[in-house]
């Protein structure tokens, strides 16, 4: 590493079911301009652009990175696109941060987006492929049996799922960018909502959102001129594994455990539950909160649900998870991982607003994608070293 990487600017769009006031180009531009403004920079200060989104099927635009170059001020500059399914927002930020740490660039703009309203992710994720029956019904259908396996092996009470749904939607009320604003959410309401993919109910699922998230990353030297506090990247890693192999632990994939072990080692973290102040985890269906708490080493195996049940993971608890409202409140798929990374950075910068965790100094951003097979994480800190 030639330099540490700092997050000196964060920009998010207003998230909504449909941003039909903007084109795809206008959407990424809104986030990028806000990130530049936060960093006190203009287009000319940016050395390179790294962009990420989920499958092209989601908007039906092949190679959107080429189509979006002028909207992102990338004319004449290095620009690349990253794609690792739902984890892409995280892995995009990591590719951008590597360009800083390696000393290749001083300031990199990284942007991730999705405009789900232009198509139907259920359709895009459920192709009628020949030779097999058309069974899978979107991401929820794929993950429901895995959630059922977790509930069985952990012996978790059924209301844990509903409690995560309530916690994250109440947190979203403190986040002006969040898509869902459900002041009247309650455990009873979640449990009365329609069963979509048994055992997953409607209010236990993420929404479909339009939106983009952007960050300006900088070297130590470039960060010196930043007008606001930086977040320092203290560890980052990606891991992957095959979607199917004999004996695969789908509930707690090895790739996720290895990814966490790697970032903690880089950041000098040996007791994550005590040393990390807040985490933004990729939780598109409620039960993934306790599942990832275990996978990432915040709880022992089969014990993660107890942290949800006793309030540890609520805003004000000992380890708040998703104080932004999380993926359960806002899900522009390709951007969702970057939102986790950016929200973690905002917490340690002290800029998270009404959902700020008091005194947060060390935070985790996490994303996963595909068949729980791609993982991306970073640890950010208010301290340089």
């Amino acid at each position, binding site marked *: 590493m030639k330099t540490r990487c700092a997050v000196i600017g964060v920009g998010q769009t207003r998230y909504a079911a449909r941003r039909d006031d903007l084109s795809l180009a206008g959407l990424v531009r809104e986030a990028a301009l806000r990130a530049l403004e936060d960093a006190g920079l203009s287009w000319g200060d940016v050395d390179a652009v790294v962009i990420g989104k989920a499958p092209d099927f989601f908007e039906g635009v092949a190679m959107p990175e080429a189509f979006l170059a002028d909207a992102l001020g990338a004319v004449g500059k290095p620009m690349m696109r990253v794609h690792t399914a739902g984890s892409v927002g995280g892995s995009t930020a990591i590719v951008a941060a590597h360009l800083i740490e390696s000393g290749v660039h001083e300031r990199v703009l990284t942007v991730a987006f999705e405009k789900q309203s232009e198509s139907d992710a259920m*359709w895009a994720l459920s192709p009628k492929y020949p030779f*097999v029956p058309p069974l899978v019904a979107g991401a929820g259908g794929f993950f429901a049996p895995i959630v059922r396996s977790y509930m069985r092996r952990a012996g978790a009470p059924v209301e844990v799922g509903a409690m995560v749904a309530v916690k994250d939607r109440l947190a979203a009320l403190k986040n002006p960018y969040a898509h869902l604003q459900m002041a009247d959410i309650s455990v009873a309401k979640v449990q009365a909502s329609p069963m979509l993919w048994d055992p997953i109910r409607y209010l236990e699922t993420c929404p479909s959102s339009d939106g983009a998230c952007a960050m300006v990353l900088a070297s130590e030297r470039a960060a010196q001129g930043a007008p606001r506090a930086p977040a320092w990247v203290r560890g980052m890693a990606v891991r992957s594994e095959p979607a199917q*192999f004999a004996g695969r632990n789908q509930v707690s994939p090895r790739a996720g455990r290895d990814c966490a072990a790697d970032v903690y080692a880089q950041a000098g973290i040996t007791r994550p539950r005590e040393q990390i102040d807040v985490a933004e985890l990729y939780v598109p269906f409620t039960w993934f909160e306790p599942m990832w708490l275990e996978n990432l080493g915040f709880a022992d195996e089969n014990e993660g649900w107890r942290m949800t049940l006793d309030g540890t993971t609520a805003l004000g608890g000992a380890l708040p998870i998703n104080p932004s409202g999380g993926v359960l409140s806002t899900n522009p798929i390709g951007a969702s991982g970057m939102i986790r990374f950016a929200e973690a950075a905002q917490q340690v910068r002290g800029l998270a607003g009404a959902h700020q965790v008091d005194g947060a100094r060390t935070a985790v951003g996490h994303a996963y994608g595909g068949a729980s097979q791609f993982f991306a994480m970073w640890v950010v800190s208010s301290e340089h070293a």
Partner: protein
Amino acid sequence: MEGKQDPASPAEALSAPYVLAYTYRRSVGPVIGRFLTGLREGRIEGVRTAAGRVLVPPAEYDPETGAAVGDFVEVGAAGVVQSWCWVSEPRAGQPLDRPFAWALVKLDGADTAMVHAVDAPSPAAMRTGMRVCVRWRAERVGSVRDIACFVPDEGSGASEAPPMPPAEPVRGMLSPVHLEFTISPGATLSRFLEGVVEGKLLGRRCPACAKVYVPPKGACPTCGVPFGDEVAVSDTGTVTSFCIVNVPFEGQTMKLPYTYGSVLLDGADIPILHLISGIPADEVRMGLRVRAEWLPAGERRPTLESIRWFAPTGEPDAAYETFSEHQ
């Protein structure tokens, strides 16, 4: 390897059509929206950049600098062909159903060219530098196709566009996509599907880890080595987990609700996904013992859909410990 044919190779490699079709609903944003609204009203507008260039069709951001573009500028409905190519066999969905030219047309007052069709009688009627003018569609909807095509300008210029009743500004457009692929599953899966037609489930064993995969893959995902012996696997098994689907969505072909599960076939080391039926949905459970219900021999095709579903065998449930490592 003359004379040493793999007994597990298929008689013929399979292939099947795979079609992806969807109509995207794009939002076009304020700049392209105004351009399309203008077309509906029979008017062509570009935008002026900071350097004074007029872009037609407009871009939202200056392609040279990335800056937001400035004022709108109306340009002429006639211009000059900058380059062209001849389409002798038009395809479905193209602007004309007879041979035509694709051309880059720089409209009068514009600094950039737009792509559109030119309705010319033959390639001999086309040349770079020729003047062409717009032929408007009578019924216009706010689409680049409101320009039906360009035609060679005989000196009279473009005719007026017939008026359209006033309407809201254009905010979006529909964009149909239709892709046709041919999927070849490869020799290993073709051989497996041949077995399915015969009512057999043929897995393969990894020579390194000894795990049996069904359907088999080309190589073991864990060990990275080609699979070894073919292994017949039972058509009975255990439901390791499942989902009851109640969600309708575009393109769905299954009748709701349906239950699908991971079925660990007896003799296999990885579950397959299939429909669970022959039992009320609320009685499906982990550990349920099931058997394949095959279509009659004459109706089976090389697809796992030749198994109608898996239905309970009536045996006692399998103990959790026997399948907990397969979730």
